[in-house]
């Protein structure tokens, strides 16, 4: 519906365990990114989404269920059940994840700062490939605060995988990850 085209830049579709991390501007982000993956990868990939939003109505639950979403409770976070722990549990040793490290949707053109979840994911599971993704134009299809989509074309760029370097600090890594997503915009 969003008429998106997908580009794989220095990266190929693969069934190895990955964390796709992308900029977040629209409710459609997870849905469109998930459906832009090849069929065999879709079954293995779960999008991380906010429980307070996606669990609210039957329609939202249906959408979340159809993309095999992993709903995370943003309001009720406990130490022994932190979101990162839940994610790692959920993917086991077969699944991949789609995350939006900005946390919530971004209303401006500039990408927000990344939250630390991605860093902890990379630290606890160094075997995961961290794949940056840039989603272009979806904010115009369905911007924040709107409920009627406009059928514009969008573009998804999937970039080369990266890992947490040894001795790299949290801020350094998050900055590097954010740059990796940003760089894909101009390719």
């Amino acid at each position: 519906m969003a008429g998106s085209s997908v580009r794989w830049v220095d990266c190929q579709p693969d069934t190895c365990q990955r964390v796709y991390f992308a900029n977040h501007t629209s409710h459609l982000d997870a849905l469109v990114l998930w459906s832009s993956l090849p069929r065999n990868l879709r079954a293995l990939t779960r999008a991380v989404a906010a429980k307070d939003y996606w669990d609210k109505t039957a329609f939202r639950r249906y959408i979340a269920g159809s993309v095999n979403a992993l709903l995370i409770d943003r309001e009720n976070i406990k130490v022994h059940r932190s979101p990162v722990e839940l994610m790692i549990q959920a993917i086991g040793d077969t699944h991949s994840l789609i995350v939006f490290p900005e946390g919530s949707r971004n209303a401006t053109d500039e990408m927000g700062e990344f939250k630390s979840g991605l860093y902890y994911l990379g630290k606890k599971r160094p075997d995961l490939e961290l794949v940056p993704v840039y989603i272009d134009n979806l904010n115009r299809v369905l911007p924040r605060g709107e409920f009627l989509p406009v059928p514009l074309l969008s573009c998804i760029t999937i970039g080369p995988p990266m890992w947490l370097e040894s001795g790299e600090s949290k801020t350094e890594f998050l900055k590097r990850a954010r740059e990796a997503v940003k760089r894909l915009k101009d390719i």
Partner: protein
Amino acid sequence: MMIESLHFEPLLGFGQGIGWLNVQTYWLVFVVIVVLIVASVIGQTLSRQPESAVSPALLRTFNQRVRAWWMMFAILAAGLLLGDTCTIVLFGLVSFWALREFITMTPTRRGDHRTLFWVFFVFTPIQYLLVGVGRSFVKLESDSAIWWADTLGLRGVDLYGLYSIMIPVYASLYIPARIALSGDARRFLERSAKIQFSLLICVYSLSYAPALVHLDLLTSKPAVGSNTSMSTGDVMPQPSADEEPADEELAEGESQPSTTRRHWEEGGRAGLLFYFVLIVQLGDIFQYGWGKLLGQRVIAPHINASRTWEGFVGGALTTALVGALLWWVTPFRIWEAACMAFVTAVMGSAGGMTMSAIKRDRGVTDTGTLVQGHAGVLDRIDSICFAAPVFFHLTRYFFSDFA
């Protein structure tokens, strides 16, 4: 009785099958198929020979073009075979897609979102609905059609009066007002203009092409053979169904200023649309060809480096010549066909030039750049968009019974 009258289909002319095309149209379609096959074969053969005289870039463009023509031909032929309603729906979808490309390429702001929703889902469908109904209320042929016309109070009304002003007047006023309501004043005029322009080009102008199939065409050509019987049938559409409009029709037919003019067969209307699209495409090709052969003076190097005065003039004249040679498909006489083809080619060039300017301003080469490797729909229809309103109005004024 009520329920039986509720069928809208006969009013829209749905279900007019293959029979709505005349022999000439079939001939034209046949000729085009043959030409396309030849072009495909040449293109494929040349691309198999690595050391040919033709440059590979040119060959790639040629093959892409041929593929686009096949696509265009398929859409048009499918529409023509399935009837006029399908033709209009298909053109509506093309408009929708082109509008999508146009707006995607043009930056808009958050405040324009609701306006864009109106443009896509209200104005575009309404325009094609109006074009689709067209003259249906003028020539009422069935009881259900009369019932609908009376209920809506539209008996004898040609919706041309509405669809020719709906977008330029009402939508153009609505768009800035709706943007103002959203409360974002930054670059207000620019944003309004962008949305108005996209609607005007992609929807309004293009909708004139399928509107051709509803014109009640007149011709000054002498009647030959089977045409005579067809045209008399045209003048008297089932007088038993509704007497009044038929009488009017006859009276008008008799009071025509030139007695030599007669109604053109209905089966030729779709042929005229096919002729129009073909002429526009030929205009593009000839302009390109002449420009390559003897192009010297570039018209506007900053807009499009490949469009030259030589290509423009040569292309328009060649198109006029070929258009005249294809006069037998149309209600035009030979010199009339030449004039129409000439004007069409000139308008087509103007369209290509305008779209080049927009693309250059946006810094893209093809409108479909967002979809990798495919030139956009808009690139293929820009000349049709510009030529359609002019071709339509000339035909309507000089070659149709629009009273």
